[in-house]
C-alpha cells in the first residue's frame, strides 16, 4: 500500500469522525482519541482561545479537552499559562522536555510533542515520553483535518449555545409547570380539608399542614387581624419545620414597618402580596435576619375575607428558594385563600345557626314546660304524668332505634300530650268517682283540643298530631277520629303505650295505682289490637332493663 493511500485512509477516518459530532466536548474528545489511535501518542490536549499577547514568553489558553493523562484531565476548563513557542507556530514534532515541564506529574514524564495548530486561536498537543515511531509525515498529514476541525469547533459552539438556550427554556417551562402543579395539588388537598372541616381552629391547622406537606412549601401560617391599638396580627395556625419562628417576630396590619410586609399589606389591601427575594426586598427588612437564619427566600401573603368581602386575616406561605412563585401559581393560591375564606365563613354561619337553633329549642322547651305545668296545676292528681310519659316514650323510641331528633320530638310531644285538658273543667278532671257519659265525652275532647292549641306552633316535629292521636288505637277503637293501623303515626303509637302504662301505674282520683305489672299485662293483652306490637315489646324491654322515672 502506498504512503498516499495510507494517508488517505487516515484523513478519511478523521474527517468521518469529526463530521459525526455536533457538540464541542464530544468533538474534541473523539478527535483526540482518533489522533492518539493513529499516532500511538498516549496523551493529547486541545487548547482553545490562545491569547494573542505573550507575557515573558508565555501565552494563556483554555484547556478544553485532555485525554490520556488523569492529572491533565483534572485541569479541563482552566486557563493555562504555557510557553508561546509551544503553542504558536506551524505543525511540529520534536523532543523538547524543557517546554513540557508544566505537564509533568506523578503519572508522566513527557519529552516529546506533536503540535497541530487548529487555527489562529486553537492548537492540539499530543504528548509522549519519546517520539513514537512512524514512517509518515505526521506534521503534514493532519493539516487538512485541522482546517475541518476549526470549522467544526465553530459550528459545535453555536450548536451548544443554541442547545443550552433550549435547555434553559425547557427547564424554565418545567419549573413553571412544577410550580403550578404544586399549587393544584395543594388546592385539591385543601378542598378535601374544607369539606371535612368541623371547626375553625382545626380548619386553619389542617390547611397549613396540607400547604406544607402536600404542596411542598416550606412554611404556612394563618394570622387574624386584631382590633387592638397596635393593629397586630395574631398567628392562629402554622405548619413547617420552625415552630418557634412566629413567636419571635412581630406582625401588624398598620401602616408601619411591621405592617408593610406581605402579610400586613395583604390584610390592609385585600390583595395578594409577594416578596420574591426576602434577602433583598426592602419591605421585608424587619424579618430578614430570621428568614435568612431558617432559609426562607420567597413569601406570599393571601388575604382571608368574610362573606361581605372584609379582610380579617391572611394566609402566608414561605418557600426556601427565591423567585419561587409563578404568576399562575399565585392565581391558584389566591383561589385557595378564597376557598379558605369561604370555609371559615361557612363554618362561622353554621355555628351561628346551631347557636340560634339551640336557643330556639331551649325557648320551645321552656314554653312546653310552662304549658305542661299549666295543665298539671289544674289536675293535681295527674301532676308529673306528662313528664313521666315523655320520659318513658323517649326510652321506647330509643329502644326502637329511632334517631335522636325523632326521639326528641316524641319526648316533647309526651310533655304536652294532655295539653287539651286545659279546656276541661277542673272538677271533672279531679272527680273521685266514675264519670258520666257526658263527662267522658268531655274528657275525650282533650285530644282534639290539644291539637287545636298546638297546630299553629311551628315545631320541627308533628307535636300537634301526636297529641291528637295519642288515644287512637290500631283497631280503630280509639278517639277522637277512630284511626286505624298506619294512619296513626308511630310517635303517637309510642306515646299511647307510655300513656297507658304510666296511667295504670299511678294513682288516680277515681282509683288507686294498679301497679306496673297490671299495666304491662294490659298492654300485652292489647298488643297488636290496640297497641303497636313493636312499641309494646320495646316498652317491656325498657321496663325490664330497670327503667325508673326520676
Amino acid at each position: 500500500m502506498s504512503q498516499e493511500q495510507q494517508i488517505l485512509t487516515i484523513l478519511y477516518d478523521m474527517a468521518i469522525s469529526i463530521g459525526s459530532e455536533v457538540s464541542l466536548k464530544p468533538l474534541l474528545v473523539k478527535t483526540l482519541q482518533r489522533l492518539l489511535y493513529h499516532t500511538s501518542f498516549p496523551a493529547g490536549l486541545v487548547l482553545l482561545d490562545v491569547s494573542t499577547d505573550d507575557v515573558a514568553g508565555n501565552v494563556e489558553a483554555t484547556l478544553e479537552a485532555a485525554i490520556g493523562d488523569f492529572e491533565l484531565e483534572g485541569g479541563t476548563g482552566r486557563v493555562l499559562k504555557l510557553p508561546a513557542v509551544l503553542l504558536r507556530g506551524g505543525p511540529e514534532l520534536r523532543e523538547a522536555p524543557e517546554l513540557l515541564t508544566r505537564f509533568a506529574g506523578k503519572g508522566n514524564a513527557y519529552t516529546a510533542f506533536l503540535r497541530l495548530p487548529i487555527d489562529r486561536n486553537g492548537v492540539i498537543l499530543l504528548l509522549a515520553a519519546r517520539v513514537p515511531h512512524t514512517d509518515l509525515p505526521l506534521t503534514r498529514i493532519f493539516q487538512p483535518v485541522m482546517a475541518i476541525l476549526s470549522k467544526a469547533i465553530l459550528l459545535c459552539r453555536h450548536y451548544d449555545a443554541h442547545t443550552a438556550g433550549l435547555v434553559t427554556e425547557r427547564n424554565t417551562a418545567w419549573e413553571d409547570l412544577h410550580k403550578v402543579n404544586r399549587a393544584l395539588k395543594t388546592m385539591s388537598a385543601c378542598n378535601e380539608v374544607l369539606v371535612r372541616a368541623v371547626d375553625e381552629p382545626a380548619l386553619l391547622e389542617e390547611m397549613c399542614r396540607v400547604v406544607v406537606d402536600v404542596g411542598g412549601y416550606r412554611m404556612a401560617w394563618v394570622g387574624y387581624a386584631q382590633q387592638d391599638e397596635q393593629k397586630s396580627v395574631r398567628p392562629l395556625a402554622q405548619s413547617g419545620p420552625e415552630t418557634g419562628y412566629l413567636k419571635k417576630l412581630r406582625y401588624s396590619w398598620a401602616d408601619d414597618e411591621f405592617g408593610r410586609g406581605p402579610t400586613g399589606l395583604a390584610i390592609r389591601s385585600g390583595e395578594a402580596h409577594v416578596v420574591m427575594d426576602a434577602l433583598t426586598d426592602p419591605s421585608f427588612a424587619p424579618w430578614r435576619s430570621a428568614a435568612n437564619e431558617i432559609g426562607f427566600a420567597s413569601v406570599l401573603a393571601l388575604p382571608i375575607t368574610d362573606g361581605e368581602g372584609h379582610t380579617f386575616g391572611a394566609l402566608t406561605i414561605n418557600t426556601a428558594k427565591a423567585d419561587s412563585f409563578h404568576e399562575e401559581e399565585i392565581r391558584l393560591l389566591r383561589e385557595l385563600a378564597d376557598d379558605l375564606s369561604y370555609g371559615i365563613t361557612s363554618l362561622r354561619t353554621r355555628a351561628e345557626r346551631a347557636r340560634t337553633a339551640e336557643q330556639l329549642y331551649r325557648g320551645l322547651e321552656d314554653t312546653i314546660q310552662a304549658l305542661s305545668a299549666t295543665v298539671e296545676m289544674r289536675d293535681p292528681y295527674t301532676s308529673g304524668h306528662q313528664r313521666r310519659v315523655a320520659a318513658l316514650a323517649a326510652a321506647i323510641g330509643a329502644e326502637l332505634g329511632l334517631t335522636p331528633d325523632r326521639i326528641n320530638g316524641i319526648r316533647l310531644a309526651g310533655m304536652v300530650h294532655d295539653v287539651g285538658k286545659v279546656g276541661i273543667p277542673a272538677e271533672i278532671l279531679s272527680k273521685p268517682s266514675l264519670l258520666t257519659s257526658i263527662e267522658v265525652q268531655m274528657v275525650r275532647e282533650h285530644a282534639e283540643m290539644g291539637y287545636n292549641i298546638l297546630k299553629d306552633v311551628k315545631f320541627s316535629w308533628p307535636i300537634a298530631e301526636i297529641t291528637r292521636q295519642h288515644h287512637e288505637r290500631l283497631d280503630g277503637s280509639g278517639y277522637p277520629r277512630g284511626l286505624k293501623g298506619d294512619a296513626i303515626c308511630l310517635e303517637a303509637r309510642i306515646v299511647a303505650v307510655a300513656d297507658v302504662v304510666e296511667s295504670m301505674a299511678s294513682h288516680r282520683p277515681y282509683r288507686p295505682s294498679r301497679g306496673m305489672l297490671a299495666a304491662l299485662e294490659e298492654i300485652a293483652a292489647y298488643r297488636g289490637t290496640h297497641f303497636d306490637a313493636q312499641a309494646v315489646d320495646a316498652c317491656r324491654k325498657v321496663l325490664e332493663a330497670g327503667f325508673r322515672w326520676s
Partner: protein
Amino acid sequence: MIPSDTARYVAEIDEGILDEQLAAWQTEQPKLGVLVLLPEAEREAVTRIQHVFARRRVPLAGAVFPALTEAGAFRTRGAWLLRFDEMPYVALYPDLPREEGKIPAALDAITADLKSHLGEGRDVTLFLLFDAMVPNIATLLDELYLRLANRVHYMGANAGSESFKPMPCLFDGSRTMQDGVLAMLLQPHRGTVLEHGYRAPEQMLTATSTEGNRILQIDWRPAFEVYREIARAQYCIEIDQQNFYQYAVHFPFGIVRANGMILVRIPVALEKDGSLFCIGEVPPNALLTLLKAPDVDSAHTIETLTEGLEGLGAPVAGKELLLFYCAGRRLHLGVEAAEHELRLLAERTRARWIAGALSLGEIGSSSQWEYPQFQNATLVASYWGQRTS
C-alpha cells in the same frame, strides 16, 4: 515433590493434584491467589476447581480459552495455574452495556470501583479478560482509557470458544459468567507488549456499511458476496457459514494507522443476513485494507515482541512470561507454523517459563505508555506477577 514455581501446567485436572499444589504454595505464600487458564475442552472442570479452591480458601480467578500454550505447543487438555503471592483486586463485571447511551453510566460505575482499589504506585496494570462475544470491546476500551487514562497500563485477552458460540468463560471462586469482563489490578506491573507482524497489502476496500462489530457492505456490495469472490479466486472454494472462519482468517481486514501499523480485524462468522461478524468493532464507513493471505514475518514479530518486553524495563531472560496467542493467527499460519513461533519466542527470550492461552482478541500496545488497542491476530506478552524487574 510438588514444584514450588509460581506457575504450573497440569496435564490432567485432578482434584488431588490441585489440592497438593495449593497446599505447597500456601506454605510459602499464605495470602496467595491463583489465575487459572483452561482450554475449552476442560470447561466442565470449573466447578471442581472452584470446590478445591474453596476448601483451601485460596482466591481464584480464571477464564476458558480455545486452547493453552505450553512448552512451545498448543494444549487442549489440562490447566495453567498461575500464582500471585498475594491475590490482586479481582472483579467480575457482568452485562456489559451494548447501547451507546448506556455505556457512560456503566463505565463510570466500573471505573469508580477500580479507582477505589488503585494503590499509590505508578505501575499498575489493568488486566482484562473479556468474553469474546461482547461486541463492543474496542469502544469499552476507549471509554476505559478516557476515565483511567495513564493511571494504569492496559493488557488483556478475549476468552471463549473458537466456535464463537456463547458460553460461560469467566470465573472466580464462586461464580461463572459470560458476556462480561474479568478485571484484575496487577500492581506493581508494567503492562504488556503486543505485535502481529502482518504486512500492509496493496488492495484497499471500503467497509461502506458497518454496525459495531458487523460489516454489512464492502465497496457498496454485500460483504459476503465480496468475500465469496475472493475465496473463489484465491482458493477455488465456495465459502459458507460452516467453513467461513476457516477461510476468512486468511483475509482479515486491516485498519491503517498513521504510525504505519495496522489494526487487524478477523471476520470470524458469517451471519444469516450476509454480514460478517468480527471480534472487535470496525469504525463506521472505515476505509479498510483487505489483508489477502497476508505474509507474516514470524522472526520479526518475535524480535519486536522481545524488544518490547525489554523496553518495559527488565532483561527478559530468566523471567516468567504470560502470553496470549491469537486463535485466528494460528488458523492462518497453521498449527505447525504457530507452534514454531511459540518455540522461537521461548528461544529468543530465554524466559524461565511462558504460560499462555489461545485468545480471541487481544488488548495491549506496541510499547509502554501508548494508546491501548484492541487487536486481532497478535501475540501479547507480559511479565508475570510482581516480578517485573
